[in-house]
C-alpha cells in the first residue's frame, strides 16, 4: 500500500461529525458497549426497590393516606425531626471539639486518641442503648447506687426519665459523633496552616482565628459529617425501638409486623424516603464544596496550638467522652459476659455448640456481610469505571441511580424487598440470600464512592501507557489499574462489610425462619431484658466491627479519603 499524497482541497474543510448515538452520552470517547450494558443493567437493578416504594406508597388507598395525615404523620414528623436535630447538634459539638483538640493542639496522648475517638463506630448504637438502659434506666445501676446511698426507694428518686428524647439523643450521639469527628479531623489535617498564620499576622488571637477562619472553612466538612449523622438517625431502628421513641422507622416496622397494615407501612415508607432524599440533596450540596476544600492541602504540618493551663481540663473532657462512648459500654459488656460465664445455665445457652449458639449467629453475620461486601465491590467496578473514565451526564445519572440505596432506610429496604419478592419472585423469598441482597442494595453507595475515589486518582495515562506497550484494554485494566486501586477496593469492601455486620431492621424483616445474625439476637435478647445473654454477642459484634474499622482508619490516615 502507498500513502496518499496530501490533497490541497481537503485543507481547511471541517469534517462532519460521524454519526453514532453513544458518544453523545459518553462524552469524548466511546465506552465499550459491554461495559455500558452491564452498568445499565446493574444500575436499574439497584434502583428497583426505591421506585417500588414510591409506586406502593403513591398507589396506596386515599383513605389510609387521610387517616395517616390526620393521625400519625404530623406527630411522627415532629418527633423524628426533633431527634435528628438534637443528635446533630450534640455530635457537632462533640465531633468538632474532639477533632480540633486531637489534630491541632498539644493535648497529651493525642497519638492514641486519634484512633480511640473513632472507635465508637464499632459499637452499634442499639448496643449502646441497651448498655445505657441498664445504667440510667428504671431500676438501673445509677438508681440502685443512689438509693443505697440515700436510703430512699428507687421509684422516689428524682431521676430524669431515660426513655425520652434526651435519653435517645444521648444513646445515638455517643455512637454516631465519629462521623463528624472523622470528617472534621480530615479537613483539619489538610488545612493550610498559612491561613491561620495570615489571620495571626492580621492581629487575630487564637480563639478569634478559630471562629472567623477555621470554623467557616471547616463548615463543608462538618456539614458532610452532620448529614451522615442525620441520615443514620432517620434510618435507625434498633436504638429508637429499645428507647421506645417514636420515629418513622419504628412506626413502619410496627405497622407492618404488629398491625399487619401493609398499606400504612408503604405510605409511611414513602414519606420517610422523601425526607431522606431532601437530606441527601443537602449532603450532595455540601459534599461538592468539601471536595473543593480538601484540594487546598497543607504542604507543611501545622504548628500545634499550645493549650497551656487548659491542657488538663481538655484532657478530662476527651477522656469523659471516650469513657461514655467506649470504655463504659465495653467494660459493662465484658462484665456481663464474665458474669454469664459463671452462671452455668446462661453459659450453656450462649456457648454450647448448637443451632442457637453464638457460633451460628457469628457465622451467619460474617458470611452475609462478606458476601454483600464482595458483591458490592464487583458491582462498583463497571459503574465506577464508566463514571470516571467516561464522564458524561448519562454516566453520572447512572451512578446516581445505582446509589438509590442511600435514600432507603433499612426498614424500607426490607419492606420493599418483601413486597417485590412476594409479588414477583416468590421462590427467592425466605432464603438467606435475600438478606445479602438487602445489604447490597442498602450499602452499595459506600463501595461505589470508594471505588470512584480510587479510580479518579489513577491517571488515564497509566492505562494508555500500558496500551502503548502492547496490552489490550482489559489487560491494561487488570495489570495496571486494579493493583493501583486495590486499597480503594479494600476500603469499599471493609465499609460495606462493617455496616452490613451491624445491620438490624432489614435483617429482622427478611431473614428466613431460624436464621439469626448477631444483631438480631442482641436485639431480641435485649428487648426481653436478658443482658447477660445479649452481652457476649454484642462484645463479639464490637470486636468483629473493630477489625475493618481499624483497617479503614489506617487507610484514611495515609490518603485524604475519609470514611463515611
Amino acid at each position: 500500500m502507498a500513502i496518499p499524497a496530501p490533497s490541497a482541497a481537503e485543507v481547511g474543510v471541517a469534517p462532519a461529525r460521524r454519526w453514532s448515538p453513544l458518544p453523545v452520552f459518553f462524552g469524548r470517547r466511546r465506552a465499550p458497549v459491554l461495559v455500558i450494558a452491564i452498568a445499565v443493567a446493574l444500575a436499574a437493578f439497584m434502583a428497583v426497590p426505591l421506585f417500588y416504594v414510591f409506586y406502593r406508597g403513591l398507589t396506596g388507598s386515599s383513605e389510609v393516606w387521610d387517616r395517616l395525615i390526620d393521625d400519625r404523620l404530623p406527630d411522627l414528623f415532629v418527633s423524628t425531626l426533633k431527634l435528628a436535630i438534637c443528635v446533630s447538634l450534640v455530635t457537632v459539638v462533640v465531633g468538632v471539639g474532639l477533632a480540633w483538640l486531637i489534630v491541632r493542639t498539644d493535648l497529651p496522648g493525642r497519638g492514641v486518641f486519634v484512633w480511640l475517638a473513632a472507635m465508637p463506630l464499632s459499637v452499634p448504637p442499639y448496643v449502646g442503648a441497651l448498655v445505657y438502659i441498664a445504667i440510667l434506666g428504671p431500676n438501673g445501676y445509677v438508681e440502685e447506687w443512689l438509693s443505697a446511698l440515700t436510703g430512699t426507694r428507687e421509684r422516689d428518686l428524682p431521676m430524669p426519665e431515660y426513655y425520652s428524647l434526651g435519653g435517645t439523643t444521648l444513646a445515638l450521639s455517643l455512637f454516631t459523633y465519629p462521623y463528624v469527628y472523622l470528617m472534621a479531623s480530615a479537613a483539619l489535617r489538610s488545612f493550610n496552616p498559612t491561613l491561620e498564620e495570615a489571620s495571626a499576622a492580621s492581629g487575630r488571637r487564637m480563639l478569634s482565628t478559630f471562629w472567623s477562619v477555621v470554623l467557616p472553612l471547616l463548615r463543608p466538612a462538618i456539614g458532610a459529617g452532620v448529614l451522615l449523622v442525620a441520615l443514620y438517625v432517620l434510618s435507625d431502628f434498633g436504638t429508637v425501638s429499645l428507647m421506645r421513641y417514636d420515629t418513622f422507622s419504628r412506626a413502619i416496622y410496627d405497622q407492618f409486623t404488629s398491625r399487619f397494615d401493609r398499606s400504612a407501612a408503604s405510605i409511611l415508607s414513602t414519606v420517610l424516603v422523601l425526607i431522606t432524599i431532601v437530606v441527601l440533596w443537602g449532603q450532595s450540596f455540601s459534599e461538592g464544596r468539601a471536595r473543593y476544600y480538601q484540594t487546598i492541602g497543607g504542604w507543611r504540618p501545622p504548628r500545634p496550638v499550645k493549650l497551656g493551663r487548659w491542657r488538663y481540663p481538655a484532657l478530662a473532657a476527651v477522656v469523659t467522652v471516650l469513657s461514655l462512648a467506649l470504655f463504659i459500654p465495653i467494660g459493662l459488656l465484658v462484665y456481663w459476659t464474665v458474669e454469664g460465664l459463671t452462671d452455668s445455665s446462661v453459659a450453656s445457652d450462649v456457648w454450647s455448640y448448637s443451632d442457637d449458639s453464638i457460633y451460628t449467629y457469628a457465622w451467619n453475620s460474617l458470611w452475609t456481610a462478606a458476601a454483600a461486601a464482595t458483591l458490592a465491590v464487583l458491582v462498583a467496578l463497571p459503574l465506577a469505571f464508566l463514571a470516571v473514565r467516561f464522564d458524561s451526564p448519562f454516566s453520572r445519572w447512572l451512578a446516581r441511580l445505582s446509589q438509590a440505596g442511600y435514600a432507603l432506610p433499612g426498614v424500607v429496604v426490607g419492606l420493599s424487598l418483601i413486597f417485590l419478592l412476594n409479588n414477583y419472585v416468590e421462590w427467592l423469598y425466605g432464603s438467606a440470600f435475600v438478606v445479602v441482597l438487602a445489604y447490597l442494595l442498602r450499602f452499595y453507595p459506600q463501595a461505589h464512592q470508594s471505588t470512584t475515589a480510587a479510580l479518579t486518582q489513577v491517571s488515564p495515562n497509566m492505562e494508555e501507557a500500558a496500551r502503548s506497550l502492547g496490552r489490550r484494554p482489559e489487560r491494561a485494566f487488570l495489570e495496571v489499574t486494579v493493583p493501583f486501586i486495590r486499597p480503594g477496593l479494600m476500603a469499599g469492601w471493609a465499609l460495606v462489610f462493617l455496616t452490613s455486620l451491624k445491620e438490624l431492621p432489614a435483617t429482622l424483616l427478611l431473614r428466613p425462619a431460624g436464621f439469626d445474625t448477631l444483631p438480631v439476637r442482641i436485639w431480641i435478647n435485649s428487648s426481653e431484658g436478658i443482658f447477660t445473654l445479649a452481652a457476649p454477642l454484642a462484645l463479639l459484634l464490637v470486636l468483629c466491627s473493630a477489625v475493618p474499622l481499624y483497617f479503614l482508619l489506617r487507610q484514611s490516615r495515609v490518603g485524604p479519603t475519609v470514611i463515611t
Partner: protein
Amino acid sequence: MTALLVGDPTIEAMEERSAATEAASPVIALRGVSKRYGDLLAVNSVDFDVAGGEILALLGPSGCGKTTTLRLIAGFEEPDAGEIWLQDEAVAGGGSWRPPERREIGVVFQDFALFPHLSVAGNTRFGLQNLPRRQRSQRVAEVLEMVGLGGLEDRYPHQLSGGQQQRVALARALAPQPALLLLDEPFSNLDAEMRVDVRLEVRQILKDLGTTVVFVTHDQEEAFVFADRVAVMNAGRLEQVGTPEELYNEPATRFVADFVGHGNFIPGIVLDGAVETELGRHIVPNSASPGQTINVLVRPHDLAISRRADGPLTVVERRFLGSEVEYVLALPSGARLISHQPPETGLMVGERVGFEVREENLRAF
C-alpha cells in the same frame, strides 16, 4: 508511489518531492486528519510526514491541538476524518483501525505515568512480553544502562528524582524498540536548570539510536534545540512545517512569525512595489494589492540603532541580557519597537537614536 498519483494535477511537483525522499518513505504520515470534540474542532485537516530517524516537534500554544494530534498518532483517539499511515500501512481512517497496543509506538507522557507498583526494572520490562523470557532481563539491563540508570533496577518510582523518573519513562518506551517514539511535553516536569542538560542527553540517546520521534512542546526554544523540523500548530491547524531556520527566516503566516522568536510588527501601506511604514519605505515581498494595510515583521536583530541627537527614535527601556542588550524604543507615533544590540552599544534611557533596517530580512503579513 507515482502509480497512484496518475491524474493528479500536481503530479510534477509530487515527483520532484518523491525523488528527494525516495530512499525512505515516511515512518508516520498524516493525511487530512481531523478530530472534533463536540463543537470544538481540536485538529483540523492536518498533513505531515516524518522521515525515519527524524525528530519532529509539534509546537503551539496550549489548546492548539498538538497533544490531540499526538494522541491520534498513538491510537488513544480515533480521527473523525483523514488517515494516519504508519510505515506504509494505514492504522486509522479510511475504514482501517489499529488499536494502540498493536501500533508499536512508544509514548513518554508528560507526567511520566510510571506504574507505581512496579520497580524500575518492572516498568522497563512491561512492554517486553513478546520477547523470550531470558532476553527480557538482558534487554532491560541494556536499556537502563543506555539511559544512565544502571544499578537502580530495584528502586520504585517514588524513590526516584524527577530526572530519573523521566529516564525510566524513556527506557520503558524504548525497550520494545518502537518504530516511532512520541514525547508529550517530556521536559515540562523538570526543574529549569536540569531541563537543559536532560534535553541534550535525551537527544543524544535518540540520535544515537536513530529513533524516529514526534514530540509536543509549547516552548519554542525547546523545539528549536531538540527537533530537526518543527510543525507549528494553531487552533487545530498546521500553520507551517520546516527547519527552525526556515520558520524563523521565512515564516509562512503572521502567527508563526509571532510565535517563533521575538518580532516587531509595524503597520504599513502597500504602494507600487514597496511598503510605506513608519520606518521608511521598503521593498517587502507581499501578496496584498496597492492601498491595503499590512504588517511588516522586523526582527530585533534586523533593526540596527546608533546614537544621533536628531534621531526619530527614543530609548525608553534598556535590559541587559548578558551577551546582548535589549532596547525598547519609542517611535514618534508612540508605537514601541525592540532592538537587540551588542553590549558595547552603551545607550541610555532617554537618548535619541537613528536606525537602519536590514531590508532583505523583512516579511509582511
